[in-house]
């Protein structure tokens, strides 16, 4: 890592076509020097450094990465695995794509360090099927790394063997759920597994496995290079270190990726200062702060600091930090109908509340949006959502139920206008 990185951003400054080749990574980003350093450290030292960094998982749940790594048993009769979750499929999220597109070697180096720390000799990058181009780019980077000795047998003379395989998904949202991902990786139906056992005990092919998001793994070289404390201080909150990529989409003047310190800005600042406000200078209607599965916030609730814990306190989630901004030009009923349709379509169908409840909610929302709603529908929707929330095998149920109950509770007047008026007022 060069000194410049600290002043600017860790990632975004490199987000251009020139930074992709190994040559750039070696020259401008001091590439693979951290891997070399890590290979001289002990596993515990690396894990401790990551713990100190307060790096929280960037995939959606925000689980402390160092702690996750420490769950891997030191001794295992079965091979251990590292899996990079690149199945970026949460609607609104587009950060991992750019990381893989522009800084693939950063990911590979992060994976090398992580694999060494947990004692895994093989790793998979499970990339969503639609990322055809990124899968090719990753494969090119992997080939480059093998040729240069950063992957393969006896890495940099350390005696550590490490292989990475790119595995393309087949287009299912549920395969972003870590155990659904593992099933899919093993060639089975993409259905989440019963937990416990957690992947750290029984994961891919029965071996202890760590599944980390692309952005999480990309942060690892910085942490090992500059120290966990340094990384932690990049964040503005106690339990949340580093910078974060926010993918802003929807009705703002300047949508796109923003890299900001963890907990460094409020939602209002992000929308009005960084993204230059609402499109066509309309009024802000709603914000979905962390990808379509997170409960919606109204325009009165945007002074919340954008990070895991503050948003949790505000009744929503940071998720994958995919901020979807909705102006008053768009019908929120239509929006939640569309979101629910997505989860209905993506439900794997194995557990009852999600399989049956998502379709039911979608049917009701469809009726309301099309003027066929009934007074009792709103109470029913809230009850169905409550019957799904927290009762399912994996988090997809919560992902479907949370938005529905938050939209109905926070925008009840819009729903009632649809029901009473017998049509969508915006139509």
């Amino acid at each position, binding site marked *: 890592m060069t000194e410049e990185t600290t002043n600017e951003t860790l990632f975004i400054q490199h987000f251009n076509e020139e930074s992709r080749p190994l040559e750039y990574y070696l020259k401008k980003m001091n590439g693979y020097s951290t891997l070399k350093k890590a290979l001289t450290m002990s596993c515990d030292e690396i894990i401790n450094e990551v713990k100190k960094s307060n790096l929280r998982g960037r995939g959606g749940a925000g689980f402390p990465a160092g702690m996750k790594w420490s769950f891997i048993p030191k001794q295992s009769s079965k091979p251990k695995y590292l899996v990079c979750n690149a199945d970026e499929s949460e609607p609104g999220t587009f950060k991992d794509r750019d990381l893989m597109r522009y800084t693939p070697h950063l990911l590979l180096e992060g994976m090398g360090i992580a694999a060494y720390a947990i004692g895994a000799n093989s790793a998979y990058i499970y990339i969503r099927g639609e990322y055809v181009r990124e899968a090719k780019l990753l494969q090119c980077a992997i080939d480059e790394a093998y040729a240069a000795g950063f992957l393969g047998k006896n890495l940099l003379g350390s005696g550590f063997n490490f292989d990475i395989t790119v595995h393309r998904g087949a287009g299912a949202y549920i395969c972003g759920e870590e155990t659904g991902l593992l099933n899919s990786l093993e060639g089975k139906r993409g259905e989440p597994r019963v937990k416990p056992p957690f992947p750290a005990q029984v994961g891919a092919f029965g071996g202890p496995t760590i599944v980390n998001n692309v952005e999480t793994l990309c942060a690892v070289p910085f942490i090992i290079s500059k120290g966990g404390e340094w990384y932690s201080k990049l964040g503005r909150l106690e339990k949340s270190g580093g910078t974060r990529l926010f993918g802003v989409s929807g009705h703002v003047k300047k949508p796109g990726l923003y890299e900001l310190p963890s907990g460094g800005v409020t939602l209002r600042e992000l929308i009005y200062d960084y993204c230059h406000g609402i499109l066509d200078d309309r009024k802000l209607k709603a914000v979905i702060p962390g990808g379509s599965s997170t409960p919606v916030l109204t325009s009165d609730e945007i002074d919340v600091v954008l990070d895991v814990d503050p948003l949790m306190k505000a009744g929503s989630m940071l998720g994958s930090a995919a901020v979807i901004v909705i102006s008053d030009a768009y019908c929120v009923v239509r929006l939640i109908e569309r979101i629910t349709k997505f989860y209905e379509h993506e439900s794997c169908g194995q557990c*009852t509340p999600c*399989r049956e409840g998502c379709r039911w909610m979608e049917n009701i929302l469809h009726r309301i949006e099309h003027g066929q709603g009934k007074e009792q529908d709103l109470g029913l929707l809230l009850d169905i959502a409550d019957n799904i929330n927290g009762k399912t*095998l994996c988090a997809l149920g919560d992902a479907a139920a949370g938005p529905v109950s938050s939209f109905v509770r926070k925008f009840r007047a819009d729903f009632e206008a649809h029901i009473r008026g017998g049509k969508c007022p915006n139509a």
Partner: protein
Amino acid sequence: MPKCVIDGREVEFKPGENLIEVAKRVGVKIPYFCYHPGLSVVGQCRMCAVEIEKMPKLQAACSTPATDGMIVKTQSERAKKNQKSVMEFLLINHPLDCPICDKSGECDLQDFSYTYGDAYSRYTEERRTYADLDMGPVIKKNMNRCIHCTRCIRFGDEIAGIREMVATRRGNNTEISTMNGIPLETEYAGNYSDICPTGSLTLKDFRFKKRAWFLKKTATICEGCSRGCNMEIQQDGNIIYRCIARENLEINKYWLCDEGRFNFQYVNDEKRICNPQVHKGEGLSASRWEESLGIAKNAVTGKKPLVLIGSDMTLEETAEILNFLKQNFKDTTTFHFGTPGIYSSTNDGYEDEILKMKSKTSNLCGLEKMGLKGFEHTPVGVDTAVIFRGGRAVLPNLKGIKTIIGIGVFLQQQAKDFRVILPGLSFAEKKGTIINFEGREQKISPAIKPVGQSMAVEDVLSLWQAGELKATTESNTGKKEKVLEL
């Protein structure tokens, strides 16, 4: 032993036991659909979710191992609301066609709906429907009734060793079926119906034959092979409608093969000879007991008959026969028979990796223990044979034998050249003891009364011997009855 508390009842458990099993032991029935003690745990139906102290979310009891000091509430407000909600979710797309469903009366979905469900439905949308493809001769599928518990998929995968039931499509459209409707291949397909918690997979053989609640059930042992699987015969009006597996973890766990399951069909078959018959030149014709016994006696008088005892006869019956032979015949050669090529238990062995044995009779070991050898070929100079048979043993090739007396269960086709047939009891009509291939003694029990004039071996032999039956002899059927005097 560690202890936990379930609904206020303290209970000990073995580490690793799940909450459903632990709760059963203190009489707490946690409702479930996808869980089955013989299959892997998937935690899919969510019906068994319970509240556990110090855990924020409800936990599926099937996938939660008990831990020391755990406090479980299966009837808390939250657990009850979840049970009600899962029932609602499962029923919104279920056709509720219980009046014409064969599963009705023994259906988990129906029973739990009665206990945990709501009398009113809030569902006003259109119900999901499927078009069903045929699945072969054993199982009829009705996908509309399916609740996606995946027990059948796991049974095929984990027990039958064949991944023939699969889930196709996804989410709300998930369909459970064979790929493209190819027929089921497993020889254990009947179990699909046993484990299905709804009427989605029913036996074609049983379809629309009888309401489940009219069936009288008798616990007994299958006679299909030397394993001796535990099963239940279900009958009404002295007609057997079906057999289902009975749990015995040492022998057959929860399963039954199709061969054993449908073996009962000969019992009420119209081709079964249920009255004494004699051969009078042009095939068999009905006779009376005294006439046929007279002919039989004459046929063997002064001869050294070959005596064959089917290894589908019980120990008690065999003892009775051997005793009879000792008293009435100076010189007989006696063998057991049952399965072509299986002359002793050393020839027996596993036919597959699941339950089936090579010996297709249930008491091969028993008859061997009584000192009998397997029949291989007719001894020189013998032209008369007496055959005792339960209904399962395969008749051997009796080259050189001119006169055959059959005592027991025979179909018309099998006995068309016999001189005399004295009808006996099948496994479903008698009690007795059999010994399986591992040497386990098990009791069979009569499920129905003897069909027609069929009579216990003991009684037939008494008649033969004494010309009369003692008026109060307790026969093998457990009934005291007076039989005609000769």
